[in-house]
């Protein structure tokens, strides 16, 4: 703890130095939040445009040039509608559920590094923090489903809880493979372990020809892990083809049926922010974070731009999957999670551990072990 002697003089009054720290952090948090919300407005439009383009439609194109302002129009429409709370609903939990989804979706971004040194909280356990917060996302959905006191939302909430808990297991193991290669839980360290170039990115270790025989093992496994992480991310965020909690042909809109107006908007923003968070996690873990494919980036602004572009590329993948892949059946989804992804990722953890212990060149072993 800092001693009580540190003071800073503002406006002729001595303030404890913590006040300055708190103000700076609040400013950083606000900046990230505004950046995220504005990005989200255009990501939503991008999602719809990609979906439309795949189906040979034009998509939203009325509000503003190319429909660029569509999300803002939608925002005002949501906000000005009446909030309807069903008579049989558990009011407190009903209102709390979208708030929890919304807040948790933002809280996770505190630990995400946007560029070299651009991070609100550079946690030692950063990746665990992201994992923990994303595993909490299920509460908003299950609480919303239960509090609505209605059949479809309840079934949707139950489905979602089972689905998210199942895929968290394999996501955890996939994260462990990356952690074994890096030797640190810190997100900045994870990104910097991939700074050399695309051959060091965890998703593309296959290109690391300097380590010739062993790069085939690690490369193949990590490429598989990248694909599995992407699929698990789809399931974890309830995106198509795994959007069974809100499968409109069976459950109308799942846990969201009874929600309207701003609470619905909060759910939707939270859901999309979680998708963007998963894009960020994929970028950090497998795609080199803010580093370029041909070399490291140390300039904060350039790093942030590279990271941002990678986010959009990953989001494009999410949008394409939504447009192209038909929906899974629920038992197939559970089978995929427990009978295929879980054993595969478990074997991958063992294989990567073997590589790190016996095959990795001595110079590459990071500090700690």
């Amino acid at each position, binding site marked *: *703890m800092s001693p*009580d002697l540190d003071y800073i003089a503002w406006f002729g009054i001595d303030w*404890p130095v*913590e006040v300055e*720290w*708190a103000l700076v952090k609040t400013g950083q948090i606000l900046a990230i939040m505004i950046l995220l919300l504005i990005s989200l407005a255009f990501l939503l439009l991008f999602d719809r445009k990609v979906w439309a383009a795949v189906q040979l439609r034009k998509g939203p194109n009325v509000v503003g040039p190319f429909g660029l302002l569509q999300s803002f129009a939608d925002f005002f429409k949501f906000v000005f509608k009446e909030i309807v709370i069903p008579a049989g609903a*558990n009011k407190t*939990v009903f209102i709390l559920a979208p708030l929890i989804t919304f807040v948790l979706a933002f809280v996770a971004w505190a630990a995400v590094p946007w560029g070299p040194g651009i991070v609100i909280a550079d*946690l*030692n*356990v950063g990746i*665990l*923090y992201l*994992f*923990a*917060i994303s*595993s*909490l996302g*299920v*509460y908003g959905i*299950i*609480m919303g489903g*239960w509090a609505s006191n209605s059949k479809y939302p*309840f079934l949707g909430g*139950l489905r979602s*809880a*089972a689905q*998210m*808990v199942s895929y*968290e297991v394999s996501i*955890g193991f996939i994260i462990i493979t990356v952690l074994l290669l890096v030797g*640190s*839980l810190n997100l900045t360290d994870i990104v910097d372990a991939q700074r050399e170039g695309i051959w060091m990115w965890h998703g593309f270790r296959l290109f690391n020809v300097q380590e010739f025989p062993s790069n085939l093992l690690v490369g193949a496994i990590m490429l598989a892990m990248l694909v599995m992480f992407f699929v698990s991310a789809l399931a974890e965020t309830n995106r198509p083809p795994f959007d069974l909690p809100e499968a409109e042909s069976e459950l109308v809109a799942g846990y969201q049926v009874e929600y309207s107006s701003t609470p619905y908007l909060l759910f939707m923003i939270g859901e999309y922010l979680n998708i963007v968070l998963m894009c960020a996690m994929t970028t950090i873990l497998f795609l080199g974070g803010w580093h370029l494919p041909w070399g490291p980036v140390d300039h904060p602004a350039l790093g942030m731009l590279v990271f941002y572009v990678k986010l959009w590329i990953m989001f494009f993948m999410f949008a394409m999957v939504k447009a192209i892949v038909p929906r899974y059946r629920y*038992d197939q989804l559970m*089978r995929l999670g427990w009978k295929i992804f879980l054993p595969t990722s478990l074997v991958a953890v063992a294989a990567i551990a073997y590589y790190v212990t016996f095959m990795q060149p001595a110079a590459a072993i990071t500090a*700690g072990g």
Partner: protein
Amino acid sequence: MLAAIAFYVLAAVAVISAFAVIAARNPVHSVLFLILTFFTAAGLFVLLGAEFLAMLLVVVYVGAVAVLFLFVVMMLDVDFAELKQGFLSYMPVGALVAAVLLAELVLVAFAASGARGAPLAIAETSGGVTNAEAIGLVLYTEYLLAFQLAGLVLLVAMIGAIVLTLRHRPGVKKQDISAQVGRRRSEAVELKDIRPGQGLG
């Protein structure tokens, strides 16, 4: 100063929500308060500098165990009035358990602070070693046997649960995924040439 504010806020929320777990009338509210208690406990761990433990607490208890808890409680169709009836008869037993727990806590606290002659201090990890590494270094060396035994106990519990619930019943229709996927058109579709007015008969 900020740490002190955070501690008092977290501690107050933890105590109040822990009380609300037993005071809430609705079992689902109880579980939600329990989750809040876990979460604030994780916050207290962070204040102690044990961020790895805090994250594990959130991932394991809040993210997985409590979800399943909530899952089960939501599915139960409990009659609250009936549940409340026998409440007072459990009171002596409950009070006894609470008294024993309290006595243990006080004894441990006194013993720990009395031995050092000072309030409990936080054991700092030696320089440069993060929390997770410090735990790993003792867990896989000094406490390896205990760690493996704990894992074994969990494995036994899991196998026990499976054995108790798994029943092989004859005549149950099951999906054979490989048979479904491996089905060809020639096995599934048969074309018949039906003459008008005759049918398949």
